[in-house]
């Protein structure tokens, strides 16, 4: 007996939940164009999923009434939005002038060696993503690092980096987004 054909194509599960969509649309009145909500929407999705997968781009595009390519064009310009999930905590180690002069480059290397990853990668347990950054605007702490929950570290030395990583492994300090 031939297998029964599916009555309709399998439904794609939407990435943007209804509350998330509402949150995005709530920003429309702030700007003269819907497209201006691109960055805020990308930030919201990123906060929610720890990445912006390609399907989310298409769904954002639909909400903003622009083409997915336009969302992708914007998204890819900023080095900020990964397409695959990053770790629970993302930490940026600064490599710009004031930090570099005080050993920033070596500390980034030290952090990566300790976690056995390269800059831009996530630890296998999914806890920490380490990235280099250009000046984080916290040069009064140089050599400095910043976690994406707002915690500021520095002036760092190797022991300070170790302590920072131990603390970061315990997870975020801010509230998880309620979406």
């Amino acid at each position: 007996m031939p297998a029964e054909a599916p009555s309709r194509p399998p439904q794609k599960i939407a990435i943007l939940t209804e509350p998330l969509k509402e949150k995005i649309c709530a920003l429309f009145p702030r700007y003269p164009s819907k497209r201006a909500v691109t960055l805020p929407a990308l930030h919201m999705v990123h906060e929610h999923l720890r990445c912006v997968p390609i399907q989310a781009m298409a769904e954002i595009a639909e909400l903003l009434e622009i083409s997915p390519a336009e969302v992708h064009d914007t998204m890819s310009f900023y080095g900020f939005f990964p397409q695959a999930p990053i770790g629970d905590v993302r930490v940026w180690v600064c490599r710009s002038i004031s930090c570099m002069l005080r050993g920033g480059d070596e500390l980034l290397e030290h952090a990566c060696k300790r976690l056995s990853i390269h800059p831009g990668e996530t630890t296998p347990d999914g806890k920490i993503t380490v990235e280099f950054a250009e000046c984080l605007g916290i040069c009064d702490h140089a050599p400095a690092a910043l976690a994406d929950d707002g915690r500021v570290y520095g002036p760092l030395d190797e022991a300070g980096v170790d302590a920072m990583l131990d603390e970061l492994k315990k997870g975020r300090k801010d509230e998880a987004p309620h979406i």
Partner: protein
Amino acid sequence: MATFEPVLTRNWNVPDARTLKVYESRGGYQSARKALTTMDPDAVVNVVKDSELRGRGGAGFPCGLKWTFLPKDRKETLMCVNGDESEPATFNNRYLLERDPHMFLEGILISCFATRASTAYVYLRFEYINAYKIMEQAIEEARAAGHLGKNIYGTGFNLDVWLHRGAGAYICGEETGLIESLEGKRGWPRIKPPFPAIEGAFRKPTVVNNIETLCCVPHIIERGANWFKSIGTPKSYGPKLYTVSGHVEKQVCVELPLGVTTRQLIDDHAGGVWKGRKAKAAVPGGISMGLLSADELDVPLDFESLRKPGCLGLGTAAVTVIDDHTPIIDYLVNTARFFAHESCGQCTPCREGTGWMNKTIHRIKNGGGRIEDLDVMLHLANNLGIIPGTTICGLADGAAWPIKNAVAKFRGELEEYIRTHQTPGAGPTPLQLDIAAGRKVDLVTIGNAIAAPTAPPPAAALHSPGRPSA
């Protein structure tokens, strides 16, 4: 000079200065009330113009004058506040946001009233996570208390302030890159004219000002243009936040009259050069501005004086001190890497030039430098940027200046480095030498030799100790 009374930082050490209650108890929002209820918008513009307040974001353009460029018959004006603060070593805007958010909001309110803008976007770099939370709260408080929103102080003036977060791109600090980014596009600077005052965000007349610039406005309204002009040096008036970082004992942000010197900053405010060393050089105002040598540390850090030692300008007044143990090539490696990373890629001279400089400087650092590299780089640097007219924005000038200044001021050291750090591996290959000398080379043979080694591996390799037998 009369003793200097700090104003931008006056609330920084007051407990809970971030709250509206404390801010109001210290005279907060009185200037805004004065402007909105007793002055005409144009009168506010005139006071700011008379004060000769110059933009604190980097270019130093007179703020009041910029406001007068808005078309007289405009229907709508937008305010974009530049809080992208990404120039390396700069963090004064962060202090203003985190420590006195209401002073900033009062500055926005008065400036929007003056320019008749009823929407202000504060473009805030994403990395200012705590500042973002503090600002959100302050806006909420100000709105609830009627300092923002509809019909402010019963004058019929409306103002909404929205925070808009960036996503880690330096170029979005350039005013038209910021505008493009705000519109939801990649942060590609626009060709000017038209300037934002004529056609800016969403094609509407737009004012773009730095956070610190706007923070000066309430004080100018309160104390008058003459007070403001009594501070600083000719053509550079008013108080300024200076940041000092790098090789100093204490990395700080201090408020001082414009025109203080690097030496004063290091010795009087930053606890001296670290580890008891001497300064070899200092970056005067963010790395785009170039480099001061040790003999130039007494040049006043104001909008005019820095041209004499060949720097680009005051920039963001962010001083980075470099001690005498640091090779200048390390400074260049860092600046070249930064600009190659941050060029937006729109203009070929900038995209290719910054990448090429980065490669050359890294090659020098790694022991493959040639003396003539310095002149070739200088030639490129002299042809890069809006000053020679080959690029859309000033990032390229910022990339060129460190090279121009370092080669001019530290040529001896750089040549010495090139000579003494040659590594054999970095030298030219025999093939390159043949080509350079115009000798005939048989590329087919060479190519085949690389592609398919026909000779059997040397016997020794097959029988070397420890090698498992096949």
